[in-house]
């Protein structure tokens, strides 16, 4: 047993230095602010800021912070508490439990559907509303009465791009399917894709399973090209899917490619570059929608991020906070009126006196407030950057518009845009 030498001076210095540097950086971070004087409600959010899903969380954080800046100061004042949910179930669980110990009115998140199945039941049992902003797998709203989502399930969005491909090439017959088998979203989506391919009378020539960690697709591409497809349908995430598109084109495939909603992100531009051109993408959010709400959202996003279009995850996260804020302010009006005696109400209405905003909610017992918020949330109709949305009583989102876009890359091949196809989506029953 060698004697344990004390660590040498440089390393003690290094350790102290590291810790010190961290302390300084932390100290410099802005403290959470609250609108002066007025009572503030807290909204918790759990997104993946670390781990391999951090690309999603990064986009979501931008959307949540934009929405907080816009709605947080309006009555009833709302403060956002953001926690890192990591990319695994355990980290998301502690993040959720941590926020549930705070007086949060509701939670937004987590980033991945697998995480949602692990953590949403905890919030549901605690009677705290959870609004999923990116969970698209089948079965999420069914977790419990307090669980709802703003991200449209795969079954709605997916078939549209195949219909669009059929319109672009009516002679279309042979379809090859790729999907990332280790991604919950992609495995759900591909089932819908395959069903709708068969429903349209097309021939499914091959199904290739890939993994989100794959980067070289030479083999599945070579196998697929032998089956001579005239449409290739991909369910994957931006990075692996983008590389797949690039390699398909480089290997000489010239037919149509339709990608699922998982690839609806400007992040694909840098991955498949000029080869993204012509890609058909099913969208639950289109930055090109010309509504007042969306134009304002895009403008605010561009003030921070330059001349780029906001990703779907950012728009959905923004919409999630917006929906909760609108529901709270509706609840605030209801509660304030309830407290006044009936004849006072009519008098107040006649004199156009407004009760102080936000007061009623802050004085409500938290469990009642959460329950009431959940009820009000599911009843409303909201005008968001995603278009008009409402909820079913179970908490499933009913989104009015879905889109199919065709990627149009600029001459440099570095960036592009999702040009909406002229034919608007048929409104779902």
């Amino acid at each position: 047993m060698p004697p344990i030498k004390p660590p040498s001076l440089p390393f003690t210095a290094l350790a102290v230095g590291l810790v010190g540097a961290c302390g300084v950086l932390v100290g410099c971070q802005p403290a959470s602010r609250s609108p002066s004087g007025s009572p503030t409600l807290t909204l918790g959010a759990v997104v993946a800021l670390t781990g391999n899903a951090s690309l999603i969380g990064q986009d979501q954080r931008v959307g949540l912070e934009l929405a907080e800046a816009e709605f947080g100061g309006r009555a009833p004042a709302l403060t956002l508490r953001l926690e890192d949910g990591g990319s695994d179930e355990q980290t998301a669980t502690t993040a959720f439990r941590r926020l549930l110990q705070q007086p949060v009115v509701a939670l937004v998140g987590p980033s991945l559907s697998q995480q949602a199945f692990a953590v949403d039941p905890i919030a549901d049992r605690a009677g705290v509303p959870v609004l999923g902003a990116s969970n698209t797998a089948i079965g999420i709203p069914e977790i419990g009465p307090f669980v709802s989502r703003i991200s449209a399930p795969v079954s709605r969005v997916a078939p549209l791009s195949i219909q669009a491909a059929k319109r672009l090439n009516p002679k279309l017959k042979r379809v090859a399917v790729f999907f990332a088998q280790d991604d919950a979203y992609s495995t759900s989506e591909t089932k819908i894709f395959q069903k709708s391919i068969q429903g349209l009378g097309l021939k499914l020539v091959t199904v290739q399973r890939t993994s989100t960690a794959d980067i070289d697709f030479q083999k599945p591409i070579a196998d697929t090209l032998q089956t001579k497809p005239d449409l290739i349908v991909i369910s994957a995430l931006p990075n692996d899917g983008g590389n797949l598109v690039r390699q398909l084109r480089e290997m000489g495939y010239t037919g149509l490619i339709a990608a699922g909603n998982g690839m609806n992100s400007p992040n694909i531009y840098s991955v498949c570059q000029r080869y993204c051109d012509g890609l058909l993408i099913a969208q639950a959010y289109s930055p090109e929608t010309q509504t007042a709400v969306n134009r304002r959202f895009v403008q605010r996003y561009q003030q921070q991020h330059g001349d780029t279009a906001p990703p779907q995850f950012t728009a959905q996260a923004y919409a999630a906070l917006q929906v909760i804020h609108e529901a709270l302010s509706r609840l605030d009006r209801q509660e304030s009126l309830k407290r006044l005696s009936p004849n006072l109400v009519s008098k107040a209405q006649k004199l156009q006196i407004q009760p102080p905003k936000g007061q009623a909610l802050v004085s409500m017992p938290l469990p009642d407030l959460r329950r009431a918020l959940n009820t009000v949330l599911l009843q409303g109709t909201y005008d968001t950057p995603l278009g008009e949305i409402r909820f079913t009583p179970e908490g499933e989102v009913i989104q009015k518009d879905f889109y199919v876009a065709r990627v149009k890359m600029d001459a440099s091949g570095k960036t592009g845009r999702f040009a909406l196809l002229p034919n608007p989506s048929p409104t779902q029953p």
Partner: protein
Amino acid sequence: METGLLVQMLLGSLLGLSVYLPLRCGQLSLATPGFYAIGGTVAALLSTRVPALGISDATYPLTSVMLEMLLAALLTGVLALGLGRVVLRLRGIYLAIATIALVEILRVVTLNLEFTGGALGIFGIPQPFSGPEGYAALTFVVLAVVCWLCDRLEKTRPGRAMAAIRDDELAAASQGINTADTKLMAFVLSALVAGVTGVVAAHFLNSWNAKLGNFDASITTLAFVVFGGSRTWLGPVFGGLLLTALPELLRPVGDLRLIVFGAVILVGPLFFPQGLITPELFQTLRRRMGRSAAPSPQGGRP
């Protein structure tokens, strides 16, 4: 501290002990996440697909959880008995990589099979407790039992045989120790602990999927043991508690959380080359205290 985090810390300790058991006789097996995944899958399948166990009850009966544990232990034990005979001929890094290969094969197969739910996994696992306190109690009891077993093991003949094999396998064999059987016993025990831990974790996490037993988990659990110390069972217990809690305790540093965490596991071994807890540490402590106090199984500081 938050009780849910405590449960995860206790589960971490159990996984640490599962890696520690074969390491005690010098076998670097990283099969723990594989057996953990099997245990979790058994619990997830039984509790959601066998109505007789009580999925429709208001709270899932604890006896059903016990039954799942028993079945998971049986399955992982039998598997480990078969696999152990094959893989334990390998040593050192080769054994480590062979076991990693097995874990990876298991992950891919789970991902491809229909009944394990593919990438989405199995969800809606029923709850035997209404809150994390129940889980903390259950995990604590399981951990206490395993700690007690390890403690007995270290003080009795098979345990001393394990230590002898770790120090010098040839010398141990020449002293009449059946090295193959001793190593196999440690491997099977390790699998049992991981399998039972998986059952608790599946209920605690409400859902189970293929990602929960992957390469990252292998490395993390190994870190518990190496960081905590691999010469006494208290090492992995403490390592598991600390390394599971650390990223969570670092939440106040925000975006720097994992950078600081990395710095800690980088610097830790420089200060504690044999791990945080070593038998020598006990001896020193005992001498200082003037009496031999048994370490508390809770895994706090002795």
